[in-house]
């Protein structure tokens, strides 16, 4: 093989017609992707990009400590935890890539001038960021499990809910990462990018639709956020609708000693008690009362009502007294019988 020197390096010269033509081909988009991917993987080590992993662990740990007794247990807790997990994903994704392009803008310009394809550069970034997001998601989910969050057993798509939920977190992180990559490509320097970042985050959080009640006109804005879809997917996977809502009971218990005053009429009470199908009313109707009376009191009671007085006049006091005897008389009746009697009296019928 001839020694390669500057003199005999191939040049892109097209010789005149009739002579041998040399057409040299240079690396296309596909090859350039691998060159840049290799470069970014070296950056992972040299540029300390690996720091995003312990940071992800710390953030996940903080969120998990706060949400571990709520997630997958109650409705409110599930929604809040899903929102928190979405925020974790967006935060990680945004800060992964917000500076990657703007900090080397001059280098990109120079390389573009030398034949680099922008699409290859971006795709290489996307592949690298996907690996980074995958690692962050694994760390996040692992930390959450270690801190004590109990994931459901079965997932909607795979046998393990933790895998499904992890995939959602990965997609949220990656979408935020890609969005930040775009912002990084827009910004001319890192200062501009970091200035824009908080507004992007606030927009995502405020318009996520899960935590704040938003006006109707903001729905299109909500539909543009990553957080809305992340929150929805996580809450759905956590089976939000079948979790119990505990805040209603908690509110009621907190009002335990609060007075309730109500005005009811006798008629309303009687109507309530007359409803035999109402279990509460039926219970009350079955309550038994016992009244002890002397024979004179019984006679007096019978004489007080016209209908029973007629019977007494027919039968005669002595017959009744012989039947009752001299001792006290126990009369047992239920509340239902009293109510029915009063109702019949009200309708003019005999009880």
């Amino acid at each position, binding site marked *: 093989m001839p020694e390669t020197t500057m003199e005999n390096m191939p040049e892109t010269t097209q010789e005149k017609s009739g002579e041998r033509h040399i057409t040299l081909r240079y690396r296309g988009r596909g090859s350039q992707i691998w060159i840049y991917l290799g470069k970014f993987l070296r950056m992972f080590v040299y540029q300390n990009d690996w720091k995003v992993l312990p940071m992800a662990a710390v953030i996940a740990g903080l969120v998990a400590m706060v949400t571990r007794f709520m997630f997958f247990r109650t409705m409110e807790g599930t929604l809040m935890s899903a929102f928190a997990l979405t925020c974790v994903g967006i935060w990680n994704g945004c800060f992964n890539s917000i500076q990657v392009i703007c900090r080397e803008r001059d280098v990109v310009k120079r390389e573009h001038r030398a034949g680099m394809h922008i699409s290859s550069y971006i795709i290489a970034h996307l592949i690298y960021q996907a690996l980074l997001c995958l690692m962050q998601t694994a760390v996040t989910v692992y930390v959450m499990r270690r801190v004590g969050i109990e994931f459901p057993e079965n997932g909607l798509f795979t046998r393990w809910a933790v895998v499904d939920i992890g995939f959602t977190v990965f997609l*949220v992180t990656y979408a935020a990462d890609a969005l930040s990559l775009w912002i990084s*490509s827009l910004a001319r320097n890192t200062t501009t990018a970091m200035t824009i970042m908080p507004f992007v985050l606030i927009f995502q959080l405020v318009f996520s639709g899960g935590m704040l009640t938003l006006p109707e006109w903001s729905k299109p804005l909500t539909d543009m956020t990553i957080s809305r879809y992340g929150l929805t997917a996580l809450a759905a996977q956590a089976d939000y609708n079948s979790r119990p809502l505990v805040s209603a*009971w908690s509110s009621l218990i907190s009002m335990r000693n609060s007075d309730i005053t109500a005005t009811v009429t006798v008629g309303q009470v009687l109507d309530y008690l007359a409803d035999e199908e109402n279990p509460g009313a039926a219970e009350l109707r079955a309550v038994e009362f016992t009244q002890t009376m002397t024979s004179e009191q019984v006679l007096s009671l019978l004489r007080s009502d016209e209908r029973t007085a007629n019977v007494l006049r027919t039968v005669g006091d002595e017959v009744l007294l012989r039947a009752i005897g001299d001792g006290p008389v126990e009369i047992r009746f239920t509340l239902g019988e009293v109510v029915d009697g009063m109702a019949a009296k009200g309708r003019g019928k005999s009880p």
Partner: protein
Amino acid sequence: MSTTVGEIIESIGENDAHLAVQRTATAANYDETYAYSRDNVLSCWLTLVLITLASAALATVTLEFIDKDKR
């Protein structure tokens, strides 16, 4: 008629009241948006993927104008 919330709860029975309130409140707060279904989750995943692709495309288009940077 004057009573306290606690007395009403006791008259019904605390456990029964708890279950009844929880059941009713949970049912009332059912949100179709968070339905536990594959379609629901898949549509969210697909949207996230589309956002990712759109951002990547925008980044590529934006960076193609890098030549226009002023010195």
